[in-house]
């Protein structure tokens, strides 16, 4: 067999392997990504569902309408509030747990690791239902516990001030384990003799944490921050199940607003909002890279 014939045969076989994926990928991923850009610049509505090409180009109108819409602005503010609090909280607790679990003083490390990770595998919808029950103001576990201490707990999910913190605590509870496991793996990759050498030089635990742990863990922290940030920017199930975006829009998120506009049949507006969210995701990831990249 000649070399070129053999190459052609390998090429054919390779495309044979790639074909099932390539076809599905082109139809169900590339096409939607491309057409979402198209839709964001049209006045497409639910009535145009079966004739997606018979719509009008409206230029930047959707984006102008979206950015000027007070409901979207509120949803954007809520999303920033959620991400701005939940992300540092999640990463902070995850790092604390990872460092504690790595300390060598822990008695049943794998039990703790599994226990902290367990919420990660749960369905958000299911645990949101459970948390609505926990936070039920009259007989929920949280207010019952506070009642024992003589504290009259708020009506968490229907209180404008407390609704968002409630969702933040739940999201943190569910997501801490993921970053913790990854950070723990990162910590185990740091050579122990670095700590031993610095201990001989007289460095205490805090100094070691700041001068060894954090710098060497930077890439891992960056990874966790990006993944967590991307997930949190799209938070949707929590308000859908727990508050329906209320009270008075206090827990409405950008993702929830995209879903609602889609439900109203405003496909063009919905696609434009998706793009705004996507740009926010890209910007957040970029900022995290700038902030956490390894200093040369």
């Amino acid at each position, binding site marked *: 067999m000649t070399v070129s014939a053999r190459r052609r045969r390998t090429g054919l076989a390779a495309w044979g392997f790639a074909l099932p994926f390539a076809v*599905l990928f082109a139809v169900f991923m590339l096409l939607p990504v491309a057409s979402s850009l198209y839709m964001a610049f049209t006045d497409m509505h639910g009535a145009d569902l079966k004739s997606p090409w018979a719509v009008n180009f409206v230029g930047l109108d959707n984006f102008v309408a979206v950015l000027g819409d007070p409901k979207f602005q509120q949803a954007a503010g809520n999303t920033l509030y959620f991400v701005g609090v939940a992300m540092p909280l999640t990463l902070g607790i995850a790092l604390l747990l990872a460092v504690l679990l790595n300390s060598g003083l822990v008695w049943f490390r794998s039990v703790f690791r599994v226990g902290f990770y367990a919420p990660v595998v749960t369905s958000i919808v*299911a645990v949101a239902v459970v*948390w609505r029950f926990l936070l039920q103001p009259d007989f929920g576990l949280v207010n019952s516990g506070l009642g024992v201490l003589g504290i009259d707990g708020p009506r968490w999910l229907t209180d404008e001030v407390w609704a968002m913190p409630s969702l933040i605590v739940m999201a943190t509870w569910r997501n801490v384990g993921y970053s913790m496991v990854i950070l723990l793996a990162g910590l185990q990759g740091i050579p122990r003799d670095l700590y031993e050498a610095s201990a001989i030089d007289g460095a205490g635990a805090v100094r070691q944490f700041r001068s060894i742990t954090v710098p060497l863990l930077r890439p891992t922290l960056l990874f966790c921050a990006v993944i967590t940030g991307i997930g949190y920017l799209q938070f949707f199930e929590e308000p859908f199940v727990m508050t329906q975006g209320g009270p008075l829009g206090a827990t409405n998120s950008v993702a929830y607003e995209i879903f609602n506009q889609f439900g109203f049949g405003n496909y063009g507006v919905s696609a434009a909002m998706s793009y705004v969210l996507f740009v926010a995701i890209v910007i957040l990831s970029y900022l995290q890279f700038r902030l956490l990249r390894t200093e040369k």
Partner: protein
Amino acid sequence: MAHDDAPRRRRFTPRAVALNAALLAGLTASIGPLVWMVVSSVKPEGEIRQFPPTFLPDQLTWANYTELFATLNFPRYFLNSVVVALVVTVGSVLFSAMVGYALAKLDFPGRRTLFALVMGTLMVPGMVTFVPLFVLVANLDLINTYAALILPFLAAPFGVFLMRQFMLDIPDELLDAARVDGAGEFRTFFAVVLPQTRPALATLGILTFLGSWNNFLWPLVAVQSADKYTLPVALALYSTGQNTVQYGLLVAGATVIVLPILIVFLALQRHIVQGISTTGLK
């Protein structure tokens, strides 16, 4: 490195006691809500609304589960979730392995372009594509079908990326030896390559199953008739509809979704946790 395996002496210094007590408190907060979910699901509605609450049920009852499975259509939703998750898992893992192998080990025209497209869509979130995907699926007349729930998830860029990374580590000599023995490309793939990547296949399979089982937005959008609901869609709609204050029923529904996954997780936790910490970073 890891000081996981070596048998260590348990030291009962004050510091160790304080540290473990603090972690135990954290553990309670972490699994407490899940335990509360399970014990509440076998209490009668009256006991659920009692103050102060009971921990273990005074009156154990299966009424909530009977209602879910006999009156409401939960057997159907459960079956839908299982079928969709299994087909998505098997299909997407197989397709990812196939294309991952081609990208890692075979030279073919369009390879760079295909890999670049996969990498480019790795981070595109479902929130950005679900509206055009809905329009597409509607025009293919697939709304309310299993195909709508399954097909979009068979092409998983993350899976391709993961499999390609693992396939890169397979020594070329192994593949050449198989070819010299006269095995064709497909024989080589199924008999030599796939067995080599078993850990990666397992990790990806578990993660894909979890993702599909817990998936919510797309099934919520893609099916509108109750006979195609998956468990999370059914529970979310019950909890925001007429059953919104039937907490016993709702936590039983949540238990039906979460408990099987938790049991599988406990059985496979070593693989899952190790898989996450390696693949997450790969």
